[in-house]
């Protein structure tokens, strides 16, 4: 079959997450229902009201110089990008037709904090000359672009917890518009430190279940009390279908569409009407030429906050109507925690794998579905999937709503 012009396919996946150092171990972790959350043991934790998080399962296996000149978010992006690139068969591509969209919600905050300590304790002469390229939010995209020689543009859309999804949506536009044949797209975040935890805790956004880290992330559950901060990176190799076909690439699935909207409601609070989320979902379906009844699976944003999870359910109902009743919904964050700017990228990977492997990893810690949430949430046991489209939602502080649509 001749591929549709400018159809965008996925040819490689990479990730480093709280569940594993690569995609296979992360996927295995999700299927077996493991939690990546644990109690933190660093000295700075004692002062904090929240003492749990979901750190990387495997430290980035990079050399000393890379560790010295790259922020942790850049290191993780590089690990995920290398895996994705190898998974795509290390494509031969004209460098002027290769682009990068790798996002971060916060950027190099660990570097910023550490170097601020260096400045105060040892003076300006001891501040690393690498500090600016390490803390800039486009640093990870630049690192990946340099590693693969991308000359068709390097982008880092910043939209808080929707950043990873927005990067993938931007990559779709770039390939559809003919500006590149391959885009390395995804997100990365490394923000497990006292200041970000204290800040999110002050917003009442984090779970305070310090004594039960593995059951603290409880999306859709009546007892949920906030998200668990995670870290990690995920990357997809997106490619025009013609380019993939011409090089005989293995195609994992299709990025069929993407929808982006904004709430114009509040800088951080979720719009309880779900209107913005619904607009993003509808836009994704239009972009993918899909109907609500084509959708069989939704990987929800579902961070485990009291208001956010309800609003997402309301938004999905607005967008999908009765079709929602036969859609299997899950939350990856019940196991990985919330990877902020990497969350959408990781969940895009998981959505695609769910469609491809025809199984939805169950949402963990869902003991009693919130009465205000009318969703068919996959819980307790993983569920087999039929054939159809899958959606992945991501929302971010700032009122960002992004929905990605995949088919296999």
């Amino acid at each position: 079959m001749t591929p549709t012009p400018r159809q965008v396919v996925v040819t490689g996946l990479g990730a480093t997450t709280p569940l594993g150092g690569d995609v296979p171990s992360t996927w295995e972790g999700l299927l077996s229902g493991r939690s990546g959350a644990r109690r933190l043991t660093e000295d700075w934790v004692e002062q904090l009201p929240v003492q749990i998080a979901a750190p990387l399962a495997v430290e980035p296996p990079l050399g000393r110089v890379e560790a010295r000149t790259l922020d942790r978010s850049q290191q993780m992006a590089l690990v995920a990008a290398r895996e994705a690139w190898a998974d795509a068969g290390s494509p031969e591509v004209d460098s002027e037709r290769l682009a990068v969209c790798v996002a971060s919600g916060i950027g190099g905050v660990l570097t910023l904090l550490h170097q601020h300590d260096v400045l105060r304790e040892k003076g300006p002469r001891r501040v690393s000359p690498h500090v600016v390229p390490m803390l800039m939010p486009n640093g990870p995209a630049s690192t990946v672009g340099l590693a693969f020689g991308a000359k068709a543009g390097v982008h880092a859309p910043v939209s808080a917890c929707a950043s990873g999804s927005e990067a993938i949506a931007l990559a779709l536009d770039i390939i559809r518009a003919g500006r590149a044949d391959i885009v390395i797209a995804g997100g990365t975040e490394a923000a497990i430190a006292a200041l970000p935890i204290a800040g999110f805790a002050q917003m009442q956004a984090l779970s305070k279940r310090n004594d039960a880290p593995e059951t603290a992330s409880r999306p859709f559950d009546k007892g949920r009390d906030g998200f668990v901060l995670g870290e990690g990176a995920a990357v997809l190799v997106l490619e025009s279908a013609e380019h993939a076909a011409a090089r005989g690439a293995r195609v994992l699935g299709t990025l069929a569409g993407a929808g982006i909207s904004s709430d114009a409601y509040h800088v951080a609070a979720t719009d309880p009407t779900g209107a913005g989320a619904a607009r993003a979902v509808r836009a994704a379906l239009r972009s993918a030429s899909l109907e609500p009844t084509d959708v069989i699976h939704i990987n929800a944003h579902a961070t485990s906050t009291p208001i956010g999870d309800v609003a997402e359910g309301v938004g999905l109902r607005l967008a999908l109507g009765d079709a929602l009743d036969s859609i299997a919904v899950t939350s990856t964050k019940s196991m990985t925690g919330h990877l902020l700017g990497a969350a959408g990228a990781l969940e895009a990977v998981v959505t695609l794998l769910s469609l491809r492997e025809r199984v939805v990893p169950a949402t963990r810690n869902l003991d009693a579905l919130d009465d205000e949430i009318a969703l068919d949430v996959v819980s307790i046991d993983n569920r087999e999937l039929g054939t159809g489209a899958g959606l992945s939602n991501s929302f971010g502080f700032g009122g960002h709503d992004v929905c990605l649509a995949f088919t296999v």
Partner: protein
Amino acid sequence: MSQADILDGLAAILEEVAGVEPADVTADKTFIDDLDVDSLSMVEVVVAAEEKFGVKIPDEDVKTLKTVGDAVSYIQRAGVAA
């Protein structure tokens, strides 16, 4: 301090900061073209050298240090002056 000691000290810094093999660090090598030390890492090398050898290397002098040999001679002179 002897030139050989300074060379060894610089090699250790270059290995730490820029991953340069100590065996590659010889007087005739240029930092940027031969040892692939970029301008940012060169700043780290200079700061580490100041600390290790107890000398001051002003920014305007750093530009004159093209080769490892230039740096060894500079540090030796600066050390004597100090």
